């Protein structure tokens, strides 16, 4: 019981620290933290579908982008409060997940990954095309944001929600069943597990949060445009963060997002021109040397429960 208590109190201390951070940190620190929370939520969401079921969503940023546009349009055209508009970003993201997940989750392996990759490109093209509604390539400008502190808490709450949900899932049979799909879908199906439905549920859950994060991001960035909210690199970044921390674990995405964000911030500040190349090398390194991620390795070596 004692290590459990220790871990819990550590967690509480960290949470308390984060809760008061905006009162001490500079605008830059708060802004940086918002982006770290954003990555935690995104990496955690990706984990829900891909870490658990093994279906690689290579276009997850589509949900983020759709959420961002929803938020932006609700704020500018309908005059909604940003918090509500951000939360509303989850709805079209879920709708998109339903429409695309229903047919595409039947595709296996690389075909699903490529279909998702294409999805992102298509959503971006459509957003650009329906110019009257979305502003096309010039995007949507929002009123300037006066304080980013509320966004800090909102984004933090989403990151926490994703993590708690992941914990909840992993400790119930739903989570085990998702894992069984990853391990051997056919065997799971033959054992009476309705894999199609479970995959769709997981996909929906994993789309909802990027939608919300996107909505908040729109408010935070004060501007959305197709190129800035649908980049493939965002998907890759969330994947690599999740992988680095440990896919299929609770705190893997959190750890991965935190460490890599700090790392990127430092590298990018110091080594201006090589940081992208370093990122590429990092991806190769993670895939080849530690595909299980930090927590995955610890889990295996020290037989830690899946709930770390």
């Amino acid at each position: 019981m004692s290590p459990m208590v220790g871990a819990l109190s550590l967690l509480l201390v960290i949470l308390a620290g984060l809760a008061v951070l905006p009162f001490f940190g500079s605008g830059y620190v708060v802004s940086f933290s918002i982006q770290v929370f954003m990555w935690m939520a995104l990496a955690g969401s990706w984990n829900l579908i891909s870490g658990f079921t093994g279906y690689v969503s290579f276009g997850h940023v589509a949900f983020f982008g759709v959420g961002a546009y929803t938020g932006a349009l609700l704020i500018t055209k309908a005059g909604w409060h940003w918090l509500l508009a951000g939360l509303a970003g989850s709805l079209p993201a879920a709708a998109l997940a339903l429409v695309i997940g229903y047919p595409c989750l039947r595709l296996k392996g690389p075909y699903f990954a490529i279909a998702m990759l294409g999805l992102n490109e298509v959503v971006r093209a459509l957003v650009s095309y329906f110019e009257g509604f979305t502003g096309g390539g010039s995007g949507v400008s929002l009123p300037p944001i006066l304080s980013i502190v509320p966004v800090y808490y909102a984004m933090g709450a989403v990151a926490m929600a994703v993590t708690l949900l992941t914990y909840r899932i992993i400790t119930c049979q739903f989570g085990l069943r998702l894992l069984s799909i990853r391990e051997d879908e056919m065997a799971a199906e033959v054992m009476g597990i309705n894999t199609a439905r479970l995959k769709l549920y997981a996909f929906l859950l994993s789309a909802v949060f990027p939608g919300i994060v996107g909505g908040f991001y729109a408010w935070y960035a004060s501007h959305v445009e197709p190129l800035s909210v649908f980049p493939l690199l965002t998907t890759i970044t969330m994947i690599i963060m999740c992988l680095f921390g440990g896919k299929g674990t609770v705190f893997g995405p959190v750890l991965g997002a935190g460490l890599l964000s700090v790392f990127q911030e430092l590298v990018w500040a110091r080594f201006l021109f090589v940081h992208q190349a370093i990122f590429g090398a990092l991806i190769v390194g993670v895939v080849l040397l530690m595909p299980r991620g930090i927590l995955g390795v610890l889990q295996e070596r020290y037989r830690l429960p899946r709930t770390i």
Partner: protein
Amino acid sequence: MTSVQITGTMLFQLVVSGLLAGGLYALVALGLSLIFGVMRVINIAHGTLLMLGAYTTYWLFALAGMNPFVSLVVSIPILFVVGAILQKLFVHRVVNAPELSSLLLTFGISIFIANVAMLAWSADYRSVEFLTGSFLLGPIALSKPRLVSFCVALALTGLAFVFLHRTKTGKAIRATSQHRDVAQVCGINVRRIDLITFGLGAALAGAGGSLVSVMFAVYPEMGQVYVFKSFLVIVLGGAGNYPGAFFGGLLLGLVEGLASLFLTAQLSEVIAYILLVIVLLVRPTGLLGGRA
């Protein structure tokens, strides 16, 4: 927004330029298809290899004044070696791993190479001003660089087929792609075949790059669009169906051309995607049949 009357001439002109583009897609996609067929690896770095081929041609042209089509004899072997090295160092470790590993690994390789290229050669757009202008056939303009590239692409694709069907190594590659385990049991050195296949795939991408360089700008991220297109071609033609890749390429060029004529360039991508999903769902073995 557009109020263009579509005429027969335009239609014909677009069909022609669609097919010209398609020939190149076919060549590039064949490389991806070989790698995918043999190793089940989607090589996201395929476009980057194409870029390296394009730069090879560019530099030979800019520094030594070499004819870009002649430079194929340099870019093909160079890219073969690059491909083989990548296979030897990295890719072979993920051949039997879940697809996430190979997707990410090749993506990582791709941004690494592209950014090193950017450091070395800057992000500037460069071009090989070799053949410019067009042959005029009445109202139809046949772009010189595209026409010649198309013919060369066709010839190279043909050569690749001859290699696959007539040589021992080529046959071994086809056998491995049809049944990896059986091929192994039959005494084929699968590791060696992987190496050759990746080299060959990279060489085809490089050749594609050399040909692209006479038509479009050369820059470090030029290859990105070709990865998705190539995959689309594979799906249309059927995975593991190499002649399918050829017809898939032509088909994609045609569909893109027509979509951008009747709709807009932006929507042609959407049409291509819808086509992809439908084919995957309705005929997962590709329009021309292949291995599921």
